[in-house]
């Protein structure tokens, strides 16, 4: 870079003092939390010097405890997919509460088109459609699920953009509607027994593959495309974006559609992973998706945030969960400790970036 590419003179500008990217703080918090668990593993008397991340017992023939590394990210991958959409919505200064119930509704609907004909050699006992919907190619449930997500997202977006309903209310309404749909579909009974090809979508580390590839795609889109730039502009100053000639309404609809399609996809992966779909799935997912984004440094007033931050935010939650199981913390304490650590992670972040009081 030449000097001129940075500015047009005036004050002294010391390029060596680069702004410290927000994401580094989150990474830093993540490392600290891991270290704390490692130390606890050594210190706590009943832990017998176990290691959190390393394969000290030689169970995997590797330096790392591979099972742990996998589960850390696997358990946040599905909510993480939702968080990718939440990130985009929040950057526009919106919020999407409907994603949790949308996961459930999509899971129910998609699963109904992913039914296998025979279960242990007997006819499928749960199919909610006739035999025509049995053993369909795996693309069918995916397409149906994503279309459903797109529809819900389009409705959310239309209410927010064209009817100017506060996103909190529009998506809270949709939250209830989607929960209702999930309960009404098959009258609250779970839908199970998908085809093998459908199961594959959520099997093993597939959720992680989906999460990370989608994260990479949306990272590029937000940073390097017009879509991304307009998303940030709208969240930064909607009126200015409008005055600058951005079609704010249409853009918002697009953002909400993408977010809902991501949530719908999360529903598909989730039901494939669990091999069943039930109406109660996805409870609180919307909150945790938002939490991932916020831990990752997003601002709920819009205009700021990044996919990398959100991925790191997801990792923080994943490490916390695994860590608690590791140190054998009892469930009711887990909640308290989780709450404390989430706050602490962000406190850490704040301390590192206070340049202006």
């Amino acid at each position, binding site marked *: 870079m030449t000097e001129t590419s940075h500015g047009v003179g005036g004050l002294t500008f010391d390029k060596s003092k680069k702004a410290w990217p927000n994401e580094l703080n989150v990474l830093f918090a993540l490392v600290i939390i891991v270290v704390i668990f490692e130390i606890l593993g050594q210190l706590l008397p009943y832990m017998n010097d176990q290691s959190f991340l390393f394969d000290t017992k030689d169970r995997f023939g590797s330096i790392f405890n591979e099972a*742990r590394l996998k589960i850390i990210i696997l*358990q946040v991958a599905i909510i993480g997919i939702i968080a990718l959409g939440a990130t985009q919505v929040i950057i526009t200064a919106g919020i999407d509460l409907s994603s949790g119930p949308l996961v459930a509704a999509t899971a129910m609907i998609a699963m109904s088109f992913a039914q296998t004909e025979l279960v242990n050699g007997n006819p499928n006992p*749960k199919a909610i459609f006739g035999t025509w919907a049995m053993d369909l190619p795996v693309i069918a449930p995916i397409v149906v699920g994503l279309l459903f997500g797109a529809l819900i997202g389009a409705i959310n977006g239309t209410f927010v953009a064209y009817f100017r309903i506060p996103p909190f209310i529009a998506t809270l309404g949709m939250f209830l509607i989607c929960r209702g749909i999930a309960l009404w579909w098959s009258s*609250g*009974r*779970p839908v199970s027994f998908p085809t093998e090809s459908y199961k594959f979508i959520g099997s093993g580390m597939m959720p992680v593959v989906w999460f990370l590839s989608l994260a990479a795609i949306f990272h590029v889109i937000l940073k390097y495309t017009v879509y991304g730039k307009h998303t940030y502009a709208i969240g930064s100053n909607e009126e200015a974006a409008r005055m600058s000639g951005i079609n704010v309404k249409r853009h918002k609809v697009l953002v909400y559609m993408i977010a809902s399609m991501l949530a719908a996809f999360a529903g598909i992966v989730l039901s494939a992973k669990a*091999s069943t779909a039930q*109406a109660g799935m996805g409870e609180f997912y919307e909150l945790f998706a938002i939490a991932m984004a916020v831990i990752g440094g997003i601002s709920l007033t819009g205009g700021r945030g990044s996919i990398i931050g959100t991925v790191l935010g997801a990792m923080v939650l994943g490490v916390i969960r695994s860590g608690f199981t590791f140190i054998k913390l009892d469930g009711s304490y*887990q909640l308290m400790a989780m709450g404390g650590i989430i706050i602490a992670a962000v406190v850490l972040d704040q301390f590192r970036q206070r340049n202006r009081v």
Partner: protein
Amino acid sequence: QDIGATISRFDDNWLTVMRNGMTEHAASIDGVNLQMEDATDDLAKQIDQVKNFVASGVDAIIVNIVDTSAGAAISEAAGSTPLVYVNRQPDNVDSLPATQAFVASNEIESGTLSAFQVCNNLRAEGKAGGARGYLMNGQLSNQAAVQRSKDVHDVIGMDMCSFMTIIDEQTANWSRDEAQDLMTNWMSSGEPFDFVLANNDEMAIGAIQAMKAAGMDMADVQVGGVDASQDALLTMQAGDYDVTVFQDAFGQGAGSVDTALAIVAGDSVDQKVYIPFKLVTPANMDEFLSKN
């Protein structure tokens, strides 16, 4: 031995009794370390909890499954680590590997027992010519709730009880306070009714509180629920509550720990242990007063 347990939700009354049964029993055995996780009714979380246990290298896992149709996914997540299902019967019960077992009850019994007893009581009161009432559902997404409500409809579908009609059925989400409001809403329409059936005791108690607040005489209404919680039994003792159903929470909890330890030790165990429900009425409630 390290045992990891995952419970569908920590804030459920009955499951809490079961959970305490597990904890106390485990504490009474030397060298057993029980670690409890809350699945918050989230199936995916529960599967991940099982995997987390495996990653931590526990010796056995106890699962109170969120969704009985996800047995296959849970069983697979456990791999070769011994696993015991407790309280709820997974759908893959017939194809469990040798390292897995279950100690559970058959949910179909509970709602049926309660509704059938209410039906009998109504007949005894001479209301066989026609009785109207309300049905309170638990959380609509919960399998036990769906099953218990279905049981009620099945009972009413029988010839013997077909004199009963449900005016309306709605959810009060297992909660006493919501049940109070729902009952008051129902009563504000002014329709006379003879019975209230609820998917659990908490909702039944809420309904009773609302009816008493409205000045109704509890002798005129048959109220049936499920769980036989302590609060319920004391309400029954006060003469307000008519029918509930007992399921040995404490015993199931303790039993699951024993079974898990037996599998770890390589002992031969019964892979399926069914625990029956028992009907509780004012006549026999003293037996149960201190049990749950």
